[in-house]
Structures are given as structure tokens and as C-alpha cells.
């Protein structure tokens, strides 16, 4: 390993990329990460003070976020730049590197966390649980560690950053640690994160390919036999899949995300899950060499399955944050699918489409960062003003908290994949990529992959269903509880945060033609392939060829707007009729109440019906003779029952068996000693 250092130094010396400007970019990013740490440490100065943390520190953190996004965005085109810091192991100093791939995710991190931090500035209340200053510390350590994950260029630094990320987020998740199920969620989260990390460590162990140097450069240089490359990829998929909620490694996700305070849920779902995507991209497209193409089918299959699984469960949820968590599983599934698709295309030497799939992945990653953060923050605002997470007890909040409602609507429509918002763009790109999959030169595969089109379409449509349920039940209709009457709208900082993210959704939706070339640049740098870029102007997105497919979001938006404007103008001009208010139609029966509406369970019923095999469902149906009929349904996760539930008893049984070894009287232990002695002596004699 010592030679690794030397070897690396030589690279440093001979590295032509080390131009002054871009090297300073890496330095700036590092300085900004350090600034995050400083902000966090400042929180420890006065742990109890909410004003200090809220009014001063979180906004500062948001500024740093913006700065990071700007710096990273400004240097996306620049060549990779490296720095070796004298940290880490003596023979493996900390290698850091800023390249377009990490750059684009840094932009994501900065842009999304800016909005979240601003929201957080107004969100945290003092009271039970972790004091605000400490929260601020953990929060900014979390951010900084994610930044470091993106910059790390050797296995040790990566593992350090990766686990620090898990650790800090764990403490954030259990901020409300007095609630038992929150503790349980945190426990599950940390254990699975650690196991996943072990898998990643193993993956690196395989990747170094006999060089026994754990810098990423050594891994890039290593030539693995296909079998080992496959093993490394599977380990990476397991490790990063566990972080990204890839079914069946998703068990922690729907527990931990709802448990956390909403800004943290937003960070987890919106940003941290993307670190898993980054990791898999880094391994699959940068570090592994000589990976057979068909390994790409694994993430495609798993991704599509978990996307369908996630969205089906989301439709069946009755807790708004769990619903969003499952929707995250869906989106991450789509991302993994895209990654796999890109791998297959690359293997099939269809570089253009590989690049297209990769662009779709990156785009969707950024989109999801904005949409899901927005939605989680929206639920956070609702949670604050109503203290209620259960969809069955919400409703009609659009009257009480219009700001939150309308801004959340943007996110809901976006994640439902409706034009002209951003969710649609990435789905469009993904579908375009899938459309080419019939051309891969492998039998069966070229039949199977196009079916993915149908699945993706189904998943997108289901996402629409889920979002209608989410928004409709929470914000529309009548209040299902009297207590909701005194719900209040979000404060200024929270509106600002929501607004920032909503703006992101809109802009990303309207200007894909400006974003896609940048992402294509990243894909090209990764050596996946290049997109032909015909001159189409800022308003027209033409990924491949003008005749093949094109999408002009601004035009569509303008058309819609014009149509609305014209219609309303004409109608008001020609038939000016005043609107009268009245009671709604109640079939002539007694008046309606919040109770007479359809419930969340009811709204999810068709999905439960259709995807019954997914659910471990227990239902208690009322009989017609019940004095007070009750209908109860609980949705269980089959994977949990099959894969996770048995683990603890198993371990316990083994522990019990071993406990016998430590039980008994001293004579027994002496006997162990004598037997050990004699056995070893006998062993020696025969040797």
C-alpha cells in the first residue's frame, strides 16, 4: 500500500489537468464544505437557542448550499481535478477529486439543500427531542458528509464520508427519540446502512483487482476478469441498493423517512438517496472495467419491480409521509432501471442511446430531488399546523393554508409526470431511451426490454393516481376533523423554501433544452456516449433527431396559458354572469360533513384490489349485525415477513446455543482449558 502513495504522487506530477482555475474550484468546494461544518459547530455553541439556530445558522447554511451549487455548476465543463490531503491512513492519504459526475451531483446537493435549509430555518420548534443547536450540527455534518461522498477518490475516504452520512442522518432521524417507533425506525435504518456499507467495502476490496491500492485510480487501472467484475457489481448494487431503497433492501426506507423531522425527510429522500445513485454510477461507469453487458439487466429488472412495488404500496398508504416514502422507492426504482438500461446500451455499443438513458437518469435524479423535497416539506408544514400525519384525519387544508397547498400542488403535479412540469421531462427521456431497446442485438432481451415501456407507462400513470390521492385527501374536500379549523399557513421562511423548490420544478420543466446538453456533457465525459445536438434553440428539446422526437415545453406551457386566458377572457366578455354560492348537492339527504367523504383507504382500494399479491393484507370486515360496525385493514410488507422478521430469532437461537458454552461451574471451564490444551498438544505432536 505504501507504494500506492508514491505511485499516486507520480500521477499528480504528470497530471496535465491540474490547471489553476479548476484546481481552485475543488478548493472552493472544500472550503464551502468546511463552512458547513463551521456553521454546524456554531450550533453547538448555544445548543438550546432556537433563535440562533433558526434565524442565523440555517440561513447561513442555505447560502453555503447556493454557493456550492454555483461553484459546481460553473465548473461542470472543467477537466477533473485532484487533491491529496494528508488525512486518512498513513499509506492511503485522502484523495479528493472533482469531476463532472461529482459536479452534477454537487449541483443537486446544493440546489436542493438550499431550499430545505431555508425551510428548516422556520421549521424547527424547541421542545421534546434533540435541542435545535445539536440538530443544526447534525444537519450540517450530514450535508458536508454528502459533499465529501461526492468528492472522495479513494475507498477509505469514501467509506468515511459514506458512514458519516449514515450516522449523522441516523441521529437526525431519531431527533424525536422519545417515541418508540421512531427509535425502532432509526435502529433499523442504521443497521441496514451499516450492512450496506460492509457490502460496499467488499465491493472495493474486489475492485482493486490485486493491486491492493484502494485509490479509485488504481481501481480504474485494474483489469478484472468478468466473473469478478460481476461480483463487484452485484456487491455495489447490494450496497447502494440498500441505501437507495431497492426492493427487497427497502425495508428501512418507509420507516425512517416518516420518522424524521420533515426537512430531514426531505434531505433523506431528495438528496441522500441520490448518493446511492451516484455511487452506483461511479462504480458501474467509472471504476469497473470489463463488465459483461447483461449485468445491466439486473438493475433494470430490480428497478422496474421496486418501482411498481413502491408505487403500489404508496397508493395503499394512509400516512402521508409513508406514502411519499414509498413513492421515493418508486422513483429510485426508475433511476436504477435507467442505469441498467444505459449499461445494456453501452454493452450493445449503442452509445447514443446509452447516453440518452444516462441523461434521463441524471435528469430524473435532479427532478426528484426538487419534487420530493418539496412534497416532504409540504407535509412538514401540514404536520406542524395540524399535528396530524394520518390522511384519514386531514382534508380541506387548501382553505386554511393556501400557500402550502398551491406550492405542494406544483410538486404533486410534477411528480405525477404531467407536462409542462419537470417530472414529465425525465419520464419522457426514459421512455425515449426504452423505445430504442428493441434494437439491442441480443435475442429475448430485445423482446423483453420493450415491455419495460409498458411498465414505465403503468408506473407513471399510477404515480398520477397516488398524487391525486395525496393532494386531494390532504388539501381538498372538507376537513375530516374539527381541529383542522385552526390550522395556520406556513411562515415566511417555510414559504420561501417551498417556493424555491417549486420554482426549481417549474424551471426544470420549462427549460429541458438548456439542461439536457449539460447532462449529456457529463454522460459524454463518462465515456458512455454522446448525444447528437442539432441546433434546436433553447425552447426545443431534441435529444436525438428532429424527426424522431422533440418536445418544446415552453410552447406547450404557452399554449395552455394562452388557451386558459383566451377562454376565460371570452367567457367573461360574452357572458358576464355572477357566480352564486350554495350548498353542494347531497342527493336531497341530510347535509354533508367531513365524514361523508371518501377516505384514503377507499381511494386506495382499487389498487389494493389489483395488486393484491404484493400486499400481506389483514382485513376485519364488519358484519351487518354489528352494533358499531368497524372496518379495519392493515397492509403488511411480504418481504419484511419473509426476509427480515426471521433474522432476529435466528441470531437469538445461535446466541442461545453459544450461551451454553459460557454457563456452568468453574470445573467446566477448567475442563474446557484442559481439553483445549490437550487438543493443541496432540495437534502439535502429529504435525
Amino acid at each position, binding site marked *: 500500500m505504501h507504494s500506492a502513495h508514491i505511485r499516486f504522487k507520480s500521477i499528480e506530477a504528470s497530471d496535465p489537468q491540474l490547471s489553476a482555475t479548476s484546481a481552485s474550484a475543488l478548493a472552493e468546494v472544500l472550503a464551502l464544505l468546511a463552512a458547513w461544518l463551521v456553521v454546524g459547530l456554531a450550533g453547538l455553541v448555544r445548543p438550546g437557542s432556537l433563535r440562533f439556530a433558526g434565524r442565523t445558522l440555517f440561513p447561513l447554511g442555505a447560502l453555503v448550499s447556493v454557493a456550492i451549487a454555483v461553484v459546481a455548476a460553473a465548473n461542470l465543463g472543467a477537466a477533473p481535478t485532484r487533491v491529496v490531503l494528508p488525512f486518512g*491512513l498513513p499509506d492511503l492519504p485522502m484523495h479528493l477529486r472533482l469531476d463532472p459526475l461529482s459536479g452534477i451531483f454537487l449541483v443537486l446537493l446544493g440546489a436542493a439543500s438550499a431550499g430545505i435549509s431555508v425551510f428548516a430555518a422556520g421549521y424547527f420548534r424547541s421542545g421534546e427531542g434533540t435541542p435545535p443547536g445539536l440538530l443544526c450540527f447534525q444537519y450540517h455534518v450530514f450535508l458536508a458528509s454528502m459533499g465529501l461522498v461526492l468528492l472522495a477518490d479513494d475507498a477509505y475516504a469514501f*467509506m468515511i464520508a459514506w458512514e458519516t452520512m449514515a450516522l449523522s442522518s441516523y441521529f437526525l432521524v431519531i431527533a424525536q*427519540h422519545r417515541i418508540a417507533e421512531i427509535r425502532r425506525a432509526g435502529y433499523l435504518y442504521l*443497521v441496514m446502512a451499516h450492512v450496506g456499507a460492509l457490502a460496499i467495502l467488499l465491493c472495493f476490496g*474486489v475492485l482493486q483487482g490485486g493491486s491492493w491500492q484502494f485509490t479509485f485510480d488504481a481501481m480504474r487501472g485494474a483489469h478484472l476478469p468478468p466473473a469478478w467484475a460481476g461480483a463487484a457489481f452485484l456487491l455495489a448494487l447490494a450496497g447502494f441498493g440498500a441505501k437507495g431503497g431497492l426492493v427487497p433492501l427497502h425495508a428501512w426506507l418507509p420507516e425512517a423517512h416518516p420518522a424524521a423531522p420533515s426537512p430531514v425527510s426531505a434531505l433523506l429522500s431528495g438528496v441522500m438517496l441520490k448518493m446511492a445513485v451516484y455511487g452506483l454510477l461511479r462504480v458501474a461507469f467509472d471504476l469497473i472495467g470489463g463488465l459483461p453487458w447483461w449485468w445491466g439487466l439486473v438493475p433494470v429488472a430490480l428497478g422496474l419491480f421496486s418501482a411498481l412495488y413502491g408505487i403500489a404500496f404508496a397508493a395503499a398508504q394512509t400516512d402521508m409521509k409513508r406514502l411519499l416514502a414509498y413513492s421515493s422507492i418508486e422513483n429510485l426504482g426508475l433511476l436504477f432501471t435507467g442505469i441498467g438500461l444505459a449499461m445494456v446500451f453501452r454493452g450493445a455499443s449503442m452509445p447514443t442511446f446509452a447516453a440518452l438513458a444516462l441523461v434521463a437518469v441524471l435528469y430524473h435524479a435532479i427532478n426528484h430531488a426538487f419534487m420530493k423535497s418539496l412534497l416532504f416539506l409540504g407535509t412538514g408544514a401540514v404536520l406542524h399546523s395540524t399535528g396530524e400525519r394520518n390522511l384519514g384525519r386531514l382534508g380541506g387544508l387548501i382553505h386554511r393554508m393556501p400557500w402550502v397547498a398551491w406550492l405542494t400542488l406544483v410538486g404533486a403535479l410534477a411528480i405525477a409526470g404531467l407536462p409542462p412540469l419537470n417530472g414529465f421531462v425525465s419520464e419522457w427521456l426514459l421512455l425515449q431511451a426504452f423505445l430504442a431497446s428493441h434494437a439491442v442485438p441480443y435475442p429475448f432481451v430485445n423482446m423483453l426490454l420493450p415491455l419495460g415501456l409498458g411498465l414505465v407507462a403503468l408506473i407513471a400513470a399510477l404515480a398520477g393516481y397516488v398524487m391525486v390521492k395525496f393532494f386531494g385527501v390532504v388539501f381538498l374536500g372538507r376537513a375530516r376533523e374539527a381541529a383542522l379549523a385552526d390550522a395556520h399557513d406556513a411562515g415566511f421562511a417555510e414559504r420561501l423554501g417551498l417556493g424555491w423548490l417549486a420554482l426549481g420544478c417549474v424551471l426544470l420543466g420549462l427549460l429541458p433544452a438548456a439542461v439536457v446538453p449539460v447532462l449529456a456533457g457529463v454522460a459524454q465525459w463518462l465515456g458512455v456516449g454522446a448525444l447528437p445536438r442539432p441546433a434546436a434553440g433553447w425552447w426545443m428539446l431534441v435529444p436525438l433527431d428532429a424527426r424522431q422526437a422533440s418536445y418544446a415545453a415552453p410552447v406547450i406551457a404557452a399554449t395552455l396559458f394562452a388557451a386558459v386566458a383566451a377562454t376565460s377572457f371570452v367567457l367573461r366578455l360574452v357572458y358576464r354572469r355572477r357566480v352564486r354560492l350554495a350548498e353542494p348537492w347531497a342527493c336531497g339527504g341530510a347535509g354533508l360533513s367531513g365524514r361523508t367523504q371518501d377516505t384514503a383507504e377507499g381511494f386506495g382500494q382499487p389498487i389494493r384490489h389489483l395488486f393484491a399479491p404484493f400486499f400481506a393484507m389483514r382485513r376485519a370486515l364488519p358484519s351487518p349485525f354489528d352494533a358499531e360496525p368497524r372496518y379495519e385493514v392493515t397492509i403488511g410488507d411480504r418481504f419484511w415477513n419473509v426476509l427480515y422478521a426471521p433474522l432476529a430469532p435466528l441470531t*437469538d437461537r445461535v*446466541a442461545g446455543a453459544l450461551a451454553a*458454552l459460557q454457563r456452568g461451574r468453574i470445573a467446566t*471451564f477448567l475442563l474446557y*482449558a484442559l481439553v483445549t490444551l490437550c487438543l493443541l498438544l496432540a495437534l502439535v505432536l502429529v504435525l
Partner: protein
Amino acid sequence: MTLALWLLLGSPVVGAATFAMLGARPRAAELNVAFSLVTFAAAAALSVRVATRGAMSAGGEQFFVDPLNVFLVTLTAFVALTTSLFSRPYMRIETADRRMTPGRLRLYHCMYQLFIATMLLALTTNNLGLMWVAMEAATLSTVLLVALYRTPASLAAGWKYFVLCGVGIAQALFGTVLLYIAAERALGASGASALLWTHLDAVKSQLEPRVLSIAFVFLLVGYGTKVGLVPLHNWLADAHAEGPTPISAVLSGLLLNVAIYAVMRCKVLAEGALHSAWPSAMLMGFGLLTVVVASFSLWRQQDIKRLFAYSSIEHMGVISFAFGMGGPVANFAGLLHMTVHSLTKSAIFFAAGHAAQKSGSQLMDRIRGLVTISPSVGWGLMIGALAILGVPPFGVFASEFLILTTAMRTEPWATPILLISFAVAFAAILQRVQPMVFGETRLRRLPHSPALLPVFTHLLIVLMLGLFIPPFLADWYRAAAQLLGGG
């Protein structure tokens, strides 16, 4: 410069004598700190001397200081110092709780210093016979401390400790005798010089292999009992659980290290004589078995100190496995692991001790929600537990990273076993620690403010070692790893 050595060995002995004579004076605790401070100063001076001018021997070659043991000496002296700092308020609280009487306090201080003295002697002596004597003395000096509280459980624990370790150490003595025989044959010179490690090391290749192999078995079983290798480990959990917490801390943090050190000295000789790697293989086998058994045993523990005692056993297994693999990287990792383990584990015991005092019980079900009543203890326990579980960015991860990667290279078959054990240990300990640290609480405030400076000093050092190992320390480890050879 030998002065430093005499000071190092002398100050604890004098300390012990003083406490024996003075008895329990009001300022005894401060005096205890003072003696430990002197010891640590001497150790520091000694280490500087070795770092600058290499190995040295003194007292007619009876004493010998090389990078390997001087680093352990410094560690021992340092932890001894911090522990004495911790024990001051801890014992105050114990006295306030009527668990400590002046008589017991006197015994405690006296034996504490004596214990430190024996360990330092075991580390610095060049004479394997003396090393044995010192190891035995270390047992004897702690037996009564383990049984200090005179409760049935503590007496049982002390008795168990006495018998098992006594018998074990007896095997080591016979091993030493055999070594002596072989040495006499090789050196020709009869008498005192035949057990001097430096001389043996010089001629180790001529030592008679069969005898050496038998000798090594006896020594391994003997000192291995003190290391706590499965299945010789049954004294360890009870001894840690029943003694006063400072003793648990030094037992776990220091005594185990010294025992490992003894094993390694013998292993070097045996391997040199045998020209074969089976001593390493034996060490690896023991290590792996220990890791697996200990990590699964963690699952069912009820008593906080027993829990972390088993975690100590697990880490001893890891260390033996590392040394078993041998080679520069693995030895480096093993030494690093010894350091971070003793620092982290003693810190954990400090925190756990206060936690137990708060709840008035060592049963983990009784300890709840530490952070709410006293954040520093709670966070100390939490961070310590995470550190000992090998979560980055703490130093334990650094060594485990090196050990795992080396294992992938040299013993691929062992890697999954280690990983599974680590995962189980992680789940088991976190499952216990989380509810103790977080959640609702019924704990009381302490009569005296707890001492958490030692806890966080240790944890900070461990954190630092995870992120950055100072060059001089690294060179030090490298030199020591060179001495251990193998691989």
C-alpha cells in the same frame, strides 16, 4: 535515560506502598492521580528516547525497551492516568452511595498502583520468566479488586478469575520452562541469560522446533487465558462486570493488551524456531472463533458491563486474527486496533459506570434515556459504542478496514465470517445502547458531577486516529510491526 525507566517502574510501586501505609486519606484520590501522572511523564520521556535513539536495555539486560513495548507502555501509562482521573469522582459517588468504605478505598488505591506496576514490569522486562511473574502478579493484584464489593456475585467472579487465570498462567510457566530448556541448549550459557528475550530472539532459528512447538502451546493456552480467547474466556465477563468500573476499564483496556503482548513475544520466538506458520494459523483460528462466539454472545446480554466485556473479547479476537495474519499491514492494523480499542473501551466503561450509578443498576433495562437527564454521559456512551462498533470516522474503523482488506487478500475465506460477526455485533450492541441513551428516562441526578473529560479525551483521540494518524505514530507502528514479523 534509564532513570526514566526506574521512575516508570518505581512510581507506581512507591505509590502502592504509600497507600498501603497512609490508608484512606481525604486527598488519596489526588495522590493517586499524581503518581499516575509521574508514571505517564516517565513513559513519555522513555518513548521520546526510543523514538529518537532506538531500542535500549537496562538493569543488566533484565529490562529492555523497543518500539513494540514502549508504545504499549505509553498507552498503559496514559490510560492509567485518565482512569485515575475518572476514578476520583466515581469513587466519591460510590462512597456517597455507601458502596465504598475507607478500608476498601485504601485497598483500591494500593492495588490500583500495584496493578499498573505489574503491567509495566511485564511490558518492560526482558526476562520471560519475570514477565510470567509479573503477569501472575497482575492477576493477584486485581483479584481482590474484582471482589471489592463483597457481594456474592462479585466474590464468585473474583474466585472464578483467580482460579481460571491462575491455572492458565501455570501452563504459561511450564511453557516458559520448556523455552528455558531449549534456550539453554541453544545458548549453551546456563542461568539467567537463557530467558532473556533479546538473546532468545538472536538465536531463535536454532531453538529445537518440537520443544518450541510444545512450549508455544503451553504459552498460548496460558497467556491466551488472560487474553480471553474462546474457550478460555469465561473469567472475563464476570471479572469486568463485578469489579468497580475503573478496574473494568483498565482490565479491558490494558491487561488484555499486555497479555496479547506476551503471546506475541512468544509467537515471534516460536515462529522463528519452527520455520513454519502454524503458530500464526493457531492464532488466526483462535481469533476467528473468538470473534464469532463473542459477537453472537453479545445478543443476549442484560448487564451493561458484561455487554462491553464481551465486546472486548470480540476485539481481542480481531487483534489475534490480525497478528495471526502477520505481515507489515496486518501487524500495523493489529497494533492500531490495540490502541483504539483500549482507548475506546475504557471511555465506554467510564460512561457506562456513570450510567450505572445514575440508574443504581447495571441492568440495561433499568438504564433509559440518558441524554435527557445528562447529555454528556449519554452521548459519551452512544459515540463510544458506535466507535467500538467500527463506524467511521472513528479509529476502530481504520484498523478494521486494514484488517478486512488484508484478510481479503491473504485469507479470503475468513472475510465473510468476520463481516457477518461485525454485522451481528453491530445489531446487538446498537439494539442495547440506543434505548439506554434515548427515550423516556427515570434516572436520578448524581451526588457529584461525573468526570467526562477522560471519556471525551479518549474519544477525540480515537476520532483523530480515524481521520489522521500522525506520522511519528505511524512510523512507530511500522517499526513495531517490523518486530512482530510474520505474514
